[in-house]
Structure formats: structure tokens, C-alpha cells
């Protein structure tokens, strides 16, 4: 998926990949992260 120039909402999960990590990944791929958050499903 081409993320360059896209806007991203990053929803992470505590037991998986958390929001800040997703944000870093998306930004490194050229996306603009407009919101990131981590959820806890347990």
C-alpha cells in the first residue's frame, strides 16, 4: 500500500502494535498521521 501523501488514523492495540509505533511507521512511509491512539481490548 502506498502511504505517501495519505492521511492516516492509527489505532493501535496494547497487546499488539501500539499507536505510537504505528504512527512512526506510517510517518516513515510518508503519511501524515492525523490521530493516533492505543486501545486495550482486555
Amino acid at each position, binding site marked *: 500500500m502506498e502511504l505517501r501523501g495519505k492521511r492516516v488514523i492509527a489505532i493501535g492495540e496494547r*497487546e499488539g*502494535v*501500539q*499507536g505510537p*509505533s504505528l504512527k512512526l511507521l506510517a510517518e516513515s512511509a510518508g503519511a501524515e498521521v492525523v490521530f*493516533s*491512539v*492505543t486501545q486495550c481490548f*482486555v
Partner: protein
Amino acid sequence: MPTPALLHASYALAHAPDLIRYGSKPTRELARDPSLLDRMAASLRSWSDALAYAPNQTFIGNLSPETLATRPRPWTQHPIEGAQPVGPLGRMVNQIALYGLMKLSDDFDLLVLSEVVARAARTALEGQINVGERLNKIVGVPDAQLGHIAETETGLPLFHDGHLAGFMRAAHAQDSSLGADILLENLACKATAVLALSDAARRGPMAADQIDYVINTGEEAVGDRYQRGAGNLAKAVGEVVGCANATGSDTKAFCAAPVHGLIVAASMVQAGVFNAVAVIGGGSLAKLGMKFLGHLKSGVPVMEDVLGAMAFVVGPGTDHDPVIRLDAVGRHPIRAGSSPQAMYQALVVDPLARAGLKLTDIDRYAVELHNPEITLPAGSGDVPTTNYRTLAALAVMRKEISRDDIDAFVAQRGMPGFAPTQGHIPAGVPYLGHARAAMQRGELSRVMVVAKGSLFLGRMTQLADGVSFILERPTTKDESFRPPSLVIRQYGEEGNGA
């Protein structure tokens, strides 16, 4: 300098099917679609079903995690025959007893019970709990009076088997922090913590009057409009149980709070500031029925029907008490990343390296021990297994094991989740009682307890958190030692200084 040790662990589960409706998720969903109440009620478990549920029996010590791993699944369809409510590590109580515990823990006449329920509750608790004269607080009102109160006052009706059983009053007309919903949550947490701490004082080596500090690690938020969450439920619980010489405070760190609390307790003991510190945590009413929609959709019982509680006693150990190693405490520092690998590097690899140990030097890891049978139907995965596989992957990366050994690592050093999804309750600590017993039997030498906390949920930071410690079997000189048999101590009975 005293060496801090885990002197005792007590656990409690309170069956609360008629309180599920006041859990956060059910409250919101039932407001949206009231017809869900009937569907939910039809999927509730009876007391005998909850009692015979293998993970619950594991929680109170009647079953070991190793035995649970060999039990046929689903556990809901393979009950334990002849299941008992009292086990070597704790007990289960039914909803009537829970209402009684809440009533005896209520110092402001906020909870009104029906006469019938109060009578049954008192009978259920008589001789079972060390609360002194407080048993006399469990009195009720006639049904007609209860009905009038429920119709005319501000608060929440409580039910038993679908019938009106009580009423929780609001304590202030405008203060939402003292609303009936918040007070019910706080009182349920207090009452279940009372049960666990009472058992610790009855069965552990320290009588209530020997405990000189209580650390509460529950997820409640006690306080009024000017100090929401200000807390000190620790002292409130200690008061009920007769810890007359103790003060206390609350340690707040989301699900990781109990492990933070145990580290603080061990530090206090080692520093000589306090001699016997109780670390407690009551149940989370908000999390009852948290995944009930997933359970209804999957056609399984609504399994988040119990409040969990625990009480640990930390003090100077004898030759037979597992030691809490403060030289190898793990922490997730602010600068650390949030990926699973970064978390476990900080929480497991770094403290082990400091202690000159490898991942394979730990006999058993106690991670997030959520019961997978509760989480899988709701799409939340098998949390313990995911954590164990991450640990195994780290061991592979560090060349301690080969890739082919991952499954064996998980089977040998892990365990199935057996704790209810009560937030702080599953966070590593449900295994401490089992670990202590196994170390006393000489079956385990070293256990690492790892807990994580979801700080980001409060919207004050994007950070997560985590802490860990190693519990280690002391080198005992007395080879004839056998674990002590159960001794029940009564309320007010002084300790023997053991």
C-alpha cells in the same frame, strides 16, 4: 537488612451475575437496546456453573495451572466435578454473600438490603470472615420498605435472581463522583478486597494487627468532586479487617498497579520502614460483562460474571518463603519504545542481564493471565499465549533457544490464562500463590512476574507502562521442611510473631 519475601497470597472471586448490568459496557448497550437485558439474562451462569468452572477453580488453588492446561476445552462444557468454594489459595462466594460483604463494608448506610437477602447473607458469612462486630451491620428492611425506597430515592436497584434485593443510594444530589453508580463500583471493590485481606489475615503468618502498612492497587476511584480518585481505599479495607496498627495508601498504575505495589512493599520491608505490608486489590465492577456482546454472538455464557480480588503479604522471609529480588526489578522507562519487543526488552531481558541470568534461567513466566475463553469469542485473542510467544521469539533472537523450540518454551515456561478479565487482577499476580506453593514443594526455583499497564486509556499520555520482578526460592537449609497446614485465625486474635 531484612530480605523481603512473599509470605502469603490469598485470592477471592465473588459471583455477581445481577451486577453485570451495571458494568460499563452493559450499561451503555442496555441504554441503547433494552431488549438485550433478556438475552443477557438467559446467558448468565448459575452459581454452581461458575463454581465448577475450571479457570475459577485454578484461581483459588484447587487446580494448578499445569492441570488446567491438560483439561479438555471449552472449559465451560467440562465442569469440575465436586468443585469446592474454598481452596488452598482462596475462595469463591456467591452473590448473596457478596451483598453481605458490601453491607458490612458500608459505613454510610448507602446500601439497603431486603430482610431476606440480609438474613441469608449473614448466615453465609458467619464464621467465614474476620470482621468482628461488623457482621451485625448486615440487616435489611421489609420488601415493602425496600420497594418504597427504590421508587422514591435516587440510586440503583440491585437484584438477585431477577428480584429486587437491595438499593444503592447516591450520596450527593449534584456530585457525580458520589453518584450511586460510582459508589456501587467503589463499594464492590472495597467489599471484595475485604474478603481477600480477611483471608490473608486468617490464613497467613501475619495476623491483622501485625500488618503495619496496606497498599491498595485496585482500579476504583474513591473521592468526591474536589478529589476524584484521591483514594486510600487501602486504609478503609484495613479498618474493616482489623489492621488496627496499619496505615496505608493506594498505588495507581492501571493493570500494572499490583506489581508496582509489590515492588514498593518489598522495598519498604527491605528498608526497614515497615515490617509487614499487605498489597491488596478488589474487583472491578466496571469490567463485568465487558465482552458480553461477543459472548452472546458466539453462543457462550456471559463469563465476565465474577469480581476478582487478592491480598498478598510481604515481609521478612524465613528460610522457606520465596524472596522478591529487588536487584532485578524490571521497568519500562519513559524513553523506551512501545513495540512488544521493546516492552519485553525493558521488562524481561534488561533486568535478567543485570542479574546475570538468561531467559531460560526463569522456570516460569507469569504474564497477563487473562482467560482466553473469555477473550477469544470477542476477538481479543489469547493474550497469555501471545505474550509467551513474544518471549520465546526474544529467546530465539538472543540465541538461547532455536526456532524449533518456541512451542516447547511456551509450554514449559508459560501457562494458560485462568484469571477473569478484571484489569489489574490478571496482570501476572494470579500465579504468585501457585508459585509460592510450588517453590515450597521444591518444584520451582525462579519465577518472573511481568505486568503491563494501559496508561494511554486516560488520555493524559500515549505511553504504556510495565514492571516486573523475580520471585526466587530461597536456599533452604532444612530439607525436612513441609509447607505448613492451614491455620484459621479469628478476628482480633493476635499474631504469634511468625
